């Protein structure tokens, strides 16, 4: 049997506009305003600034800035440590912004209110991406400046390569955040994010070089997407053989690490979509 497509005639009645009504709702303006609102609303929360921007640089100053030494092919250990703490900072930002904040806004009912408006859900997500990009840039600049001041010297193109590797790579953890934001209970999300991300950072060698960690940690690391992110970041600064010494692992192919990140992105993406639909289903029930 051939199914007839249902013909929907849009016969909404005339609008009853107020005399002062103005045309609005251009998608570009919507996106721009949403991004502006996200950024200015978080910029004004000092705790958020401290937690995301200040803590990574503090950790670097405490544990990385005084580390000396140069690896055989000339890579500075301090530069690699700086990259580690920068990597910690931007992934932390992505997980907490996409995870913790979405969970909180879901809990408050802000998402429910938005759902009752004509705004497409992706505009909301673009706002979050803008926030992560801007604050991620801030984190990197602050950590890089601290690196520079404590004696890290790199070529301009190396700084740039490290910067973009860090920023783009961190966005691949957005879906992990989304999954957390929609699956965790709103009040628990931040705690869960910490429980997941602190061990992940440790085992991936963001806090201490992997060559200083116990062997079982070194064996575990290659199964974590954050470790592969770290590999890409360290390799943007040091030579393959130096990075291999630093991590006590063969450095491997960049493509392999990128595939790990993409795989993680997609796996958590599936979880995030599941979480989003489950949340929506619960609301609609």
């Amino acid at each position, binding site marked *: 049997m051939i199914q007839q497509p249902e013909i929907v005639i*849009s*016969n*909404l*009645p005339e*609008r*009853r*506009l*107020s005399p*002062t*009504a*103005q*045309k*609005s*709702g251009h998608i570009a*303006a*919507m996106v721009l*305003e*949403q991004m502006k*609102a996200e950024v*200015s*609303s*978080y910029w*004004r*929360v000092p705790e958020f600034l401290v937690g995301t921007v200040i803590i990574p640089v503090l950790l670097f100053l405490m544990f990385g800035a005084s580390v000396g030494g140069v690896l055989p092919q000339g890579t500075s250990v301090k530069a690699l440590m700086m990259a580690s703490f920068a990597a910690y900072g931007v992934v932390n930002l992505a997980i907490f912004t996409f995870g913790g904040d979405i969970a909180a*806004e879901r*809990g*408050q*009912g*802000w998402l*429910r*209110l*938005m*759902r*009752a*408006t*004509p*705004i497409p859900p992706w505009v909301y997500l673009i706002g979050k991406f803008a926030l992560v990009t801007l604050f991620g840039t801030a984190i990197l600049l602050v950590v890089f400046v601290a690196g520079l001041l404590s004696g890290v010297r790199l070529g301009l193109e190396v700084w740039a390569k490290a910067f973009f590797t860090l920023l783009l790579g961190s966005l691949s953890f957005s879906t992990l955040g989304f999954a957390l934001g929609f699956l965790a209970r709103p009040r628990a999300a931040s705690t869960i994010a910490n429980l997941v991300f602190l061990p992940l950072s440790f085992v991936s060698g963001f806090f201490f070089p992997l060559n200083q960690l116990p062997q079982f940690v070194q064996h575990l690391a290659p199964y974590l997407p954050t470790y592969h992110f770290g590999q890409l970041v360290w390799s943007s600064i040091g030579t393959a053989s130096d990075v291999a010494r630093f991590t006590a692992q063969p450095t491997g192919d960049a493509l392999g690490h990128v595939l790990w990140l993409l795989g993680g992105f997609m796996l958590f993406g599936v979880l995030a979509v599941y979480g989003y639909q489950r949340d929506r289903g619960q*609301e*609609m*029930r």
Partner: protein
Amino acid sequence: MKVIELHNVSKRYGEVQALSDVSLSVEPGEVMAFLGPNGAGKTTAIGIMLGLKTPSGGTVRLFGQNPESPQVRGRVGVMLQESGVPESLTTEELVRLFGCYYPYTLPVEEVLRRADLLEKRRAFVRQLSGGQRQRLYFALSIVGDPDLIFLDEPTVAMDVEARRAFWEQVRGFAALGKTILFSTHYLEEVDSIASRVVVLHQGQVLKSGTPAEIKSLVAAKTVRLKTELSVTAASQYPGVERAERENGHLVVYSNTPEVFLERLFREGHAVADLTVKDTDLEAAFVRLTA
């Protein structure tokens, strides 16, 4: 064309039947009130009309279409119970942001004036009092110049004076020819603004009529006192809808208790232990269904 049409809508939450067989239609320009005690199904019904909840049975149409369609959402404004908004934005920023979401918008200045928030335009949301917050939600509900707005128990955190002022603002917006559906459990609120009242009780439409018709069924005030006046005599007094005796007290239901009391005192009846209270709707509806 009807603005809202519900046909045999029902909603179950597990064992609980939140709505059963609710049918109603709302014409353009109507101001309709959902009146009922807590748990009557008002919020569920509004959620279904907004397309935020799926009904277990029946059909919902807004402007003849599915409430979830973007064209419908573009002409509907809403004030939900307990909707958080970003705390670190100012009132004005939030109103401007919300205006962008809709195909048409009212000037921010006008919205702030209509919601009486001009003085708070630069205040952060977290600095607003409960009543100001409710007015902000009202502002968000009208900024898209919607043809239809839903207000779910909008005055719940307000004192009497704030409530009066709030309904004044709603009336101003209704005067633009807008359709409004609000819910409340204050009987006196339906009187001041609604053109039609639907009484919901335990998920069903108990009564539907003009505010005057509903008020004759359920008087707004309950007067309780000790006196020698009989129930039969009291029933004949002006302004008395109904009288009964309960635990030795005379209980009088009235929309104008002052008229009744004035006469009572003038005639020199002995009066003791007098209280005047808003009628408990739950109790009133139980009596109506009995």
